[in-house]
């Protein structure tokens, strides 16, 4: 009795698929095509994904998880807001009307720390006379570090091991820095002890000893790319350069430009009044305490960090007593002894206390807390805070409260779009695999025409023949995809050694750290991506085999048997 197709078909198909797979060069070529395509997509996706991950991690540096911001003129009573934020135990997180809650129950203790910040634009005058525009971040270093891991971004510090690609050990941090006298009050010039720890401390405290005045002064910390005095080598290390400067007499002076050692910059800022109008430009010289590197070029090229108090003073945002002039008037005063009433001239001038202001408060959430949940909680806390200070601080609805992703939406969005574009292009290229499998299968079906005739002659059904080829495509897809996974894993795990080898052997350096900014090629191989790509490879192979399979099933057995 004839059995059902699905039940009866696979026995001879399994045999032939196995034999075809192991005895011909064609299936090997097809598998190689699938392997190369899956490898290409997986490696690209992993590297681009790694790139995005590193960028995101870097993008979190210096910004915290959530920023509560009222730009330009800033807002007062920020210490109280910070106390509220840090005291929050998350007792009343409730979703706003019309908004879905991201957590089933009110999360507790979302906030680890909060820090005040002033963000403003300024101009830096450099020792060689150039000026650069920067974003200024006025911070209290200790709280800023708690929120942003600022200390970790400080570049000039003691270093025991060279960076991964620094084979020549050209990183100056590996050597002792002996100019201790430049950094530590009272140190003698011939002190040979290492000054890197002192430089790190200077960065942490935003201050530097000034040899000229003999005082410890507030100092700025610049991004490593701000001054242009640090040469970034191919191995990703910074080497301070010397700068030549031509003076008004035409003489060329050689400037030592290792800024954290003895460099100074002139900072120009424009304070604004409460209506956002410029008042009077303020300029001040600051020594450079250290430099930071976040791996986000935007920050490292254009941000300068300085003590909050100093920036508040320069921007007129510090606490101050102000005389508020009012119109002259009269008042009636009753003598308490005699009960006689007198008319007195009275001035409405009042001495008022203007509290210090900041443009923002940075908030750090606990690990694993969704930034959007944290933002919602911050909005609530701010609303409570604003309710206590009606007319004194901006309304909650006016405040700009953003997650770090929202703050960096510009570059995150750009990278995500780039990834999507590259993947789209590579997937298009992977369609080549379909065409390749199709053409190889077409030729294999032609080559195997006689086999198809024999199978039909001995009773194989049309469906059975079609399924034989689809099954063959499936097998090639599985073999090719698994090989592709193996190859891509090998490449991804060894991408940096492979890249270095290419550089040594062929002089090819695709990933130049002086251009791409990361010293290592990042990668992020994730299982969901792997399964998607492998599944795609298998489906593409079956699709490639589909048309040849249909063709095979429709072959006239008599013609097939006569095929030579």
């Amino acid at each position: 009795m004839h059995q059902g197709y699905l039940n009866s078909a696979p026995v001879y198909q399994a045999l032939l698929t196995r034999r075809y797979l192991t005895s011909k060069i064609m299936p090997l070529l097809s598998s190689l095509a699938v392997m190369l395509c899956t490898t290409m997509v997986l490696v690209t996706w992993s590297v681009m994904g790694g790139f995005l991950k590193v960028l995101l991690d870097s993008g979190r540096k210096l910004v915290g998880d959530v920023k509560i911001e009222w730009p330009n003129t800033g807002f007062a009573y920020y210490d109280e807001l910070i106390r509220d934020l840090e005291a929050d135990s998350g007792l009343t997180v409730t979703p706003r009307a019309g908004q879905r809650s991201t957590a089933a129950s009110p999360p507790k203790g979302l906030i680890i720390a909060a820090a005040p910040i002033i963000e403003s634009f300024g101009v830096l005058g450099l020792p060689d006379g150039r000026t650069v525009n920067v974003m200024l971040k006025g911070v209290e270093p200790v709280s800023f570090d708690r929120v942003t891991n600022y200390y970790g971004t400080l570049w000039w510090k003691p270093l025991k091991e060279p960076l991964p690609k620094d084979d020549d050990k050209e990183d100056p941090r590996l050597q002792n820095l002996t100019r201790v006298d430049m950094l530590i009050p009272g140190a003698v010039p011939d002190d040979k002890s290492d000054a890197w720890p002192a430089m790190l401390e200077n960065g942490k405290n935003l201050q530097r000893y000034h040899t000229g005045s003999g005082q410890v002064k507030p100092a700025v910390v610049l991004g490593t790319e701000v001054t242009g005095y640090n040469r970034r080598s191919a191995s990703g290390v910074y080497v301070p350069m010397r700068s030549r400067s031509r003076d008004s007499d035409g003489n060329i002076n050689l400037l030592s430009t290792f800024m954290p050692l003895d460099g100074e910059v002139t900072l120009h800022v424009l304070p604004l009044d409460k209506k956002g109008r410029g008042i009077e430009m303020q300029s001040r010289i600051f020594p450079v305490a250290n430099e930071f590197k976040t791996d986000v070029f935007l920050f490292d090229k254009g941000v300068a960090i300085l003590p909050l108090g100093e920036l508040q003073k320069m921007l007129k945002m510090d606490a101050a007593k102000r005389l508020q002039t009012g119109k002259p008037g009269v008042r009636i005063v009753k003598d308490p002894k005699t009960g006689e009433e007198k008319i007195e001239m009275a001035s409405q001038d009042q001495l008022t206390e203007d509290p210090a202001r900041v443009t923002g408060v940075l908030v750090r959430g606990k690990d694993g807390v969704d930034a959007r949940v944290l933002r919602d909680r911050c909005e609530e806390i701010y609303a409570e805070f604003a309710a206590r200070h009606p007319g004194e601080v901006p309304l909650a609805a006016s405040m700009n409260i953003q997650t770090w992703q929202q703050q960096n939406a510009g570059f995150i969005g750009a990278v995500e779009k780039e990834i999507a574009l590259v993947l789209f292009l590579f997937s298009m290229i992977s369609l080549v695999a379909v065409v390749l499998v199709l053409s190889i299968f077409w030729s294999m079906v032609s080559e195997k025409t006689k086999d198809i005739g024999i199978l039909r002659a001995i009773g194989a059904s049309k469906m059975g023949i079609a399924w034989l080829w689809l099954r063959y495509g499936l097998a090639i897809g599985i073999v090719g995809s698994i090989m592709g996974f193996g190859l891509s894993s090998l490449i991804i795990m060894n991408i940096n050694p492979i890249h270095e080898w290419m550089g040594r052997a062929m002089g090819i350096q695709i990933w130049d750290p002086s251009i791409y900014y990361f010293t290592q090629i990042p990668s992020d191989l994730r299982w969901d991506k792997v399964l998607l790509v492998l599944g795609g490879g298998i489906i593409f192979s079956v699709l490639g085999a589909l048309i040849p399979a249909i063709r095979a099933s429709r072959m006239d057995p008599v013609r097939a048997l006569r095929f030579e």
Partner: protein
Amino acid sequence: MPILAAHNLFKTYQLGKTHVPVLRGVSLSIEEGERVAILGRSGSGKSTLLHLLAGLDTPDAGHDSHIAFDGRTLASRSGRELDDYRTRSVGLVFQFYHLFPELPVLENVLIASMIGKSRIAWTTSRQALRSRATALLEQVGLGHRLHHRPVELSGGERQRVAIARALMNEPRILLADEPTGNLDRQTGSSILDLLDGVQAQTKQTMVIVTHDPATAARADRTVRLADGIVVESLDSTPTSPTGSHG
């Protein structure tokens, strides 16, 4: 009732714009256990007739043509039933052997039994089927070549494998298309001896297409085809398997 009966078969092939009539009203009847030779020159339509009998092709419509196996016409069978007919009722042997080059001899024979078996039936009967395939190969003198590839065999050996494959499913009728056409006289004779032996042993019904009168002479009956029609049907004198033909 004949085991296989063909009535008024017409077949025309189209070569470009030209219609080439190959069969022009062939009728034929084959009794169970009979060995019939279809004799004809090249182009006489004998292979086409064999393909029609095997259900690999269909006769032209409109001539009241039909082929009946065990009294039931092939035209009345579904595609699946026709596949089943080729698997179980018919065994085919070709001039050019038509073996699978990737499969060793044993699997070339076994594959015929795989086509009609369910996976479960195959698993349960695999040992028995392997034994049958091995016995058949021993019967055709290839017991020592089970694991060789066809490319390692001589022409005669390949044809023996093809005969073993055709007999694997114990078909009711064996259809052979020029089984000795690609072999030298001596080897061809040994193949015919083998077929004689099979028929003597199992009373296997056979239809052998040949252009060689000597081959045809070893059949019970010879049907001579010329220009697509049966011109002569002669009973032969029965010959012994070790007769003087060859």
